[in-house]
């Protein structure tokens, strides 16, 4: 089988099935993206309860968890939510949470996290999968 090597132009996204296959719960990872105060507000709320989230640009309704709703409504404009101080995999994961998991290339991601595209490829394009982030193979 030919080895697939992602490049700076290969689109990546969060592969949610990866969490299931590896016995992990993505909601735990999402929960960690919240501030302590936000985590406190979620105490007692089922992690997988689905709410209708209304997109502020299009009016489109998506079924999301309460944690996701908080991230999208309260953290989208927070400059500390995505920064070059965070590990690459963490920053990229957060970008995909905010953009509804729309695929992005390392070049596009690099511009948003303040890193070089080659760093993104080196971190996310190897065998190890971080936070379920994987390249999309055609």
């Amino acid at each position, binding site marked *: 089988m030919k080895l697939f090597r992602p490049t700076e132009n290969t689109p990546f996204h969060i592969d949610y099935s990866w969490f299931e296959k590896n016995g992990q719960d993505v909601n735990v990872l999402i929960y960690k993206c919240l501030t302590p105060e936000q985590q406190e507000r979620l105490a007692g709320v089922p992690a997988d309860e689905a709410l209708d989230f209304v997109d*502020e640009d*299009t*009016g489109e309704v998506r079924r999301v968890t309460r944690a996701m709703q908080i991230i999208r409504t309260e953290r989208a404009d927070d400059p500390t939510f995505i920064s070059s101080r965070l590990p690459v995999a963490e920053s990229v994961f957060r970008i995909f949470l905010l953009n509804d998991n729309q695929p992005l290339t390392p070049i596009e991601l690099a511009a948003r996290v303040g890193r070089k595209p080659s760093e993104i490829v080196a971190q996310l394009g190897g065998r190890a999968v971080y936070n379920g982030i994987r390249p999309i193979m055609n």
Partner: protein
Amino acid sequence: MEKVLDRVIHRQTQTSAYWSALTITADDAEFLYGFILEAGKPQRIGDLTLALIRHRVEQENEALRRQWADNNVYQPKNRYAVGERLIFPALKFASGRVVGVRPGNNPDLGEFEVIAVQFDDGRRREFAANYPRAHRLNDEDATALFDAQHLKTPEALYEEHGAQVAAALTAALEDNDEFIRIGEEWFLRAMMAEVNIGHLNLAEAVLDVANGGPLTTDVILRDLGLPPDIGDKVQEASLNNALAADPRFDEVSLNDRPAWFLRRLEPAEVREMPQPLRAVRFPGNTTISAELTRLARELDDELEFDETIPVTPAHSATLILTFPHRRAGTLGWSHAAASVLPQSLKPRIPMRFKDRATQKEVTVWLVRAGRYVWGLGDWFKANDLPAGAYIELSRSDAENLVWIDYRRRRPKREWVRVANLRDGRLHLETAQRAVACEVDELMSVFVDDPRLFDALRSDRPRDVMQAVREAFPEIAKLSPQGNVHARTLYAVVNLITRCAPTDVFAALTASGSYVPVGDNYWHLSER
């Protein structure tokens, strides 16, 4: 999720791709037919192009209006029922039908509904409805989406894409029998007035009385008596078309207002190339040196005029008079001359040259076949200009008037190169002659009786190689070293045979009897 990138209706006519791929359809032709019909007179391609662009833009607007007529613009604050058609400005104006309604579930947002929409492309998505909270789409005025203020106007599109649309349109109109091209304008064949042979004979008589012309079409029309119910412009267009198709007439205008001349009354030298200008070519493919190629380009002979090199307009140009032109009373319509003369593709055009010193005007003809300007014989004679004299042309404010002058100086007798015939062959000598103008030292040749050379050309025509062989030793003997400059050779060869510099240099190179000694000087080979 599709984010809102632009909140305007995507219009193809706003893109370059649309205009560069434009194909003129039958509908376009029908529209342009109506456009010209309504105008009642011929239209320039630029006007037709702008009209077509306006038409295409309006067609697109109309299509959008039709598309939107049965659709409501989606706004979250409104309630929608199953079956209702909606259009979504934030999703590039995709449209779809409401196929379901359910209550929304989000305690933070209060009560609202969620509608399921089946899009025309098959996708199914959900949207908020009866949603009174602040939302960008709720605040938007749906009618403003049609607002054309941000769009490029047809005039702006014409500025940007007019050239390529005009090219496509011209090609399409040329292929369409319903349209007829009259000069720079387009008209409908069906609207043309009938111009019969009687009208054309009358036109010939009118021009005959005017010494051949030129007369503008409206002046000729006065005597033709075309039906008065046909508009002036149409009458003019019809007559222009008929005159253009009749070989008796030449269109000789320098501007976009046609003017006509009776061909048989044009000077014979304009209808047919004067004998001294008829050139012979050197056969074969001899390659000449880069140095000689540069010199040939510098000599700028109209025989080697390259149509593919654009002419850069200039205020003035200096030409060197050569013997064939001196004899024919012409100047070469070379690159240098073309930079000052009006640009035209017409076969023959009369215009005026005005002597800067005497202020006298001369009528000259620009003749495209052979690229020469005829009509200067008397002026050359009056000023006693020899071959090799510098002639200066400069533009005037009037489009059909060019200043002409030569480099004047106080006349004095000088030792110069004089050409004669001896025993039917070229003979050069150095003799004293009165010189009243500045000349190119390498190219000047004084000829006491030019008629002798006419006889030489007609009785014993030389090919290029023979002419080089005859001219070279005659030039060489006038120099102590026996050297001959290629420039002088070109000038002297042209006394006996009209030919282009490249042909002279090819014969010089191919002969094997001459060797280059540098700086375009050549010497008789000692082999």
